[in-house]
């Protein structure tokens, strides 16, 4: 199984990953640290903000080489909290980093997730169109990330063992107003604390399966799912055995504590004595999207409309929900488990391919969420299994999301969720009042190239109406439905032995209500940004 997975992309690279210089979120999702909060901040006074950030880096920012309570290796030195920080491009500007340096970041990052401009009297929203942030997900309706008056400049991510520990951490790090007087809290991104043993997203499905293993970050021997470090961390070889574009600093001082930038032919144009330093090394780009999940609407649609197999309407509802997701609620893939009771060990939940096991989509439909977001060995534009694997391997993302809001049922019991959904009055999301945050997911992914990884998947696989020869449909879980600028896309098809079943008028089950692109620097780069910003003033 999986013997060819990504093998073509992997090349021996002598460089060891510098874990002490990498922020911890890259190496782990901090699973033992159950409680988390994301503080979306606005810098109002650059020098004071720099002083605060400098203190934070010195005392609190967690690196990838640190261990935690709950890890396998128990030790007195283990930490019981974690702190990470990342900046938006306007955040780098607000902290007074040189514009010349900011201009070396990728276009996607410097423009931001909902950048808009006017041309010939028309408002152009390139990124919103590509990502499907339209209608109810229009950035104008977002809770955060869209403000022109008080934009998000950075995110402080706090993780702790329990809610009380998190409150203490927050008190120590954030609540002292003197300490952080240069920053304002723009949006408080609190998350839901799971009861132990249950880790599901709000629709009731196990989440976080199918994570790529980063080369150099796992003790396990390199496996078929190992991905080159540079796919997620800048400064290392990526899936092309090349370096993803990285921000840099041109300087005359060789003593700056940043690594040298990988040499390129254009560097010969640099004037004498000037050297190029890699500001991206050991850093990454971070995409955060807050997605409201309409759980009642989801289960009501499944219950009312399902024509899938099942002894009861409840079973049929679960079956359709599983077909749209691509997994059963317990995380087993439809490709390998016919009814979700195959008792597949947790570490094998992601061990499957499509070509040999389900080439016609009879088990897992072609349009299912997981088949779109990672088509594995059956990319519809790939000519064969190997080529498809290679293509899929160039668009992987490292996901670190958490849910927020109280679940519809605290045990994530699907039968009870369906019963509650059937009783609920579903309101149409026509205005802001009806989209007050209730429950949902902070989708968080780490990538070395926002365009090639996150935007590609979102645009070409999630939002393409013609994906895998399908018509009038996008990703049923996270895709946007019809809008004036888009083709009709409100259908979902489940392939069957003879004739497919077509579901019409599938509503939007998620709405984006906030989002931003961040840069999470390595520790040396973080220090550089803090210490060398404001120098031009």
């Amino acid at each position, binding site marked *: 199984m999986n013997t060819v997975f990504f093998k073509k992309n992997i090349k021996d690279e002598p460089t060891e990953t510098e874990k002490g210089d990498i922020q911890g979120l890259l190496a782990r999702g901090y699973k033992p640290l159950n409680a988390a909060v994301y503080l979306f901040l606005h810098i109002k006074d650059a020098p004071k903000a720099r002083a605060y950030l400098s203190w934070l880096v010195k005392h609190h920012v967690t690196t990838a080489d640190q261990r935690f309570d709950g890890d396998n290796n128990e030790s007195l030195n283990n930490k019981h909290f974690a702190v990470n920080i990342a900046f938006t491009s306007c955040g780098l500007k607000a902290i007074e980093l040189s514009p010349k340096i900011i201009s070396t970041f990728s276009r996607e990052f410097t423009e931001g997730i909902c950048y808009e*401009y006017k041309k010939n009297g028309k408002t152009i929203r390139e990124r919103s169109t590509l990502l499907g942030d339209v209608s109810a997900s229009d950035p104008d309706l977002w809770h955060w990330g869209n403000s022109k008056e008080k934009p998000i400049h950075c995110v402080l991510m706090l993780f702790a063992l329990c809610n009380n520990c998190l409150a203490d951490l927050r008190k120590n790090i954030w609540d002292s107003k003197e300490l952080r007087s240069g920053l304002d809290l723009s949006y408080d991104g609190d998350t839901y604390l799971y009861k132990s043993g249950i880790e599901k997203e709000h629709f009731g499905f196990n989440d976080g399966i199918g994570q790529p293993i980063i080369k150099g970050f796992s003790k396990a021997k390199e496996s078929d799912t190992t991905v080159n470090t540079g796919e997620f961390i800048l400064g290392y070889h990526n899936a092309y055995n090349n370096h993803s574009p990285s921000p840099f600093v041109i300087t005359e001082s060789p003593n700056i504590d940043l690594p040298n930038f990988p040499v390129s032919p254009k560097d010969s144009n640099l004037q004498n004595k000037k050297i190029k330093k890699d500001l991206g090394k050991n850093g990454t780009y971070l995409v955060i999207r807050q997605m409201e999940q309409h759980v009642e609407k989801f289960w009501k649609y499944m219950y009312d409309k399902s024509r899938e197999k099942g002894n009861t309407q409840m079973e049929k509802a679960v079956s359709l929900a599983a077909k749209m997701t691509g997994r059963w609620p317990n995380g087993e893939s439809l490709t390998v488990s016919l009814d979700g009771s195959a008792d597949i060990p947790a570490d094998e939940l992601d061990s499957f391919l499509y070509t040999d096991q389900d080439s016609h989509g009879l088990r897992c439909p072609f349009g299912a969420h997981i088949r779109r977001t990672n088509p594995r060995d059956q990319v519809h534009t790939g000519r064969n299994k190997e080529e498809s694997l290679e293509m899929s391997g160039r668009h992987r993302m490292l996901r670190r999301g958490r849910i927020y809001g109280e679940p519809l049922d605290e045990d994530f019991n699907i039968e009870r969720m369906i019963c509650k959904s059937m009783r609920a009055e579903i309101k149409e999301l026509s205005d802001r009042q009806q989209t007050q945050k209730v429950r949902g997911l902070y989708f968080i992914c780490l990538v070395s190239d926002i365009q090639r990884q996150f935007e590609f998947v979102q645009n070409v696989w999630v939002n393409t109406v013609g994906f895998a020869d399908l018509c009038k449909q996008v990703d049923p879980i996270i895709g946007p439905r019809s809008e004036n600028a888009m083709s009709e896309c409100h259908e979902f098809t489940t392939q069957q032995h003879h004739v497919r079943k077509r579901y019409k008028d599938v509503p939007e089950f998620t709405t984006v209500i906030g989002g931003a692109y961040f840069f999470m620097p390595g520790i040396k780069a973080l220090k550089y940004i803090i210490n060398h910003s404001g120098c031009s003033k």
Partner: protein
Amino acid sequence: MHNTHAGLTVAVEIVVNDKEALRTALRNLSSSGNNRFSDSKTTLIATGVILPAQKYKTENDLPETLVFSTTYCGPVKEHLDDITTNCKAELESIFKYCKGFNSLKGSSADLKKFMLDNSHKSTHTSRFNYISKEDVTREKELRIEIEDYLDQLQTKFNLDNMSPFDIQKLIQRHIKTRGIYNWALKKPCKKLIEIFDSRKVLITLLPTALFLVFLLFKFSNCPICLLLTVVPAVILLVILLTILLLLYIGRKKTEPADMVSKYRLRTLAASQLHPVVNEMTATNALKNGKLRRHFYAVALRIINFIYSPQIPTVRAIRWLVINNKKRLVFISNYSNTTDFYVRDFLNGNTPIGVNFMFTNGKGFPDAKALVLNGIIQKPEEYMNAVHSGQMVADFWYIHEPDLTIDIINKNRRIRKGLFKKMNQEETIQWLRLF
């Protein structure tokens, strides 16, 4: 009339110093209600782009040029008759800014001659070849009709309990009762010219014929047979040598293209936000060298006969050289946006064939990097070279803009199988097209 697709590319120097007026005229062609190309029976795709003056050897020695291109269906004569009749005023409104146009008398015949005189041969591939414009639309409607009928059937019967043959028969009966689909009762048949497509003839028949004549010569010692063997063999050798030579001279390294500004990237990206299909025109001066110019032009002609690039998301694609063979032009229509489409070229085996055509453009990585090692070695340099030459089309028309190439071809397969006698497995496969 046959339904073979081909590309017409008119490239002509702009002489009137009012580029903005020309741009406005091109944009007027696109505006709704004014797009006569949608009425044209033969035009599948049409593009109008202004290429800026560029450097070949000296600054701006390649003049500002208007490139008007179409992908059409049928004989070129009929296409020209069609557009010079239906879209005469529109074409005149753009060509009046070009060299040699104002001396014409204004008749359709003059316009046709002007376009032919300024047209350039291209390496053109359509991935929905032999499907007429009318068929693209009505096959789409046929699929929608059958899909709706299947939905109705499923409300009444459990189709899992029926044989695939019975389901096919029910569909056939339904289509027969709907008079508007009478055209679908007959399967589309290819004309002789479509069957003996030049590419297929060259690829399949030439080597076979060569082998047969060789056998004949071996056993009969007939001197005519010897001649018949030698001539095609020499042709094949010339083709091979041309390609090898081109690869060799493509190894010449030039400066990588200058980094494209974020502002320009933004402008380019904004022109690529159509929901399903988009257009890209890119132009780069060829790397210098007289030998290269001529060999490249010859190679493009040869490639047109022997190679058909199969880029998965492309509807139609072409390469050509203009301005005295000094400038390479690339025009493509494809699903998704440019950057994601261009990334198609970085995947799998596609680079080996497609990027052969790019190796001789200035700013692109050299042939070794592009072809022998694969452009995946220098993906960012390659993407930058494409962006540096990319133009925003001021006029673009495409028939059925909401259909991807895969859906167009799927609709054709549905039509072909509708009344075809198939075995059980084939019938199941056909039903899976819905």
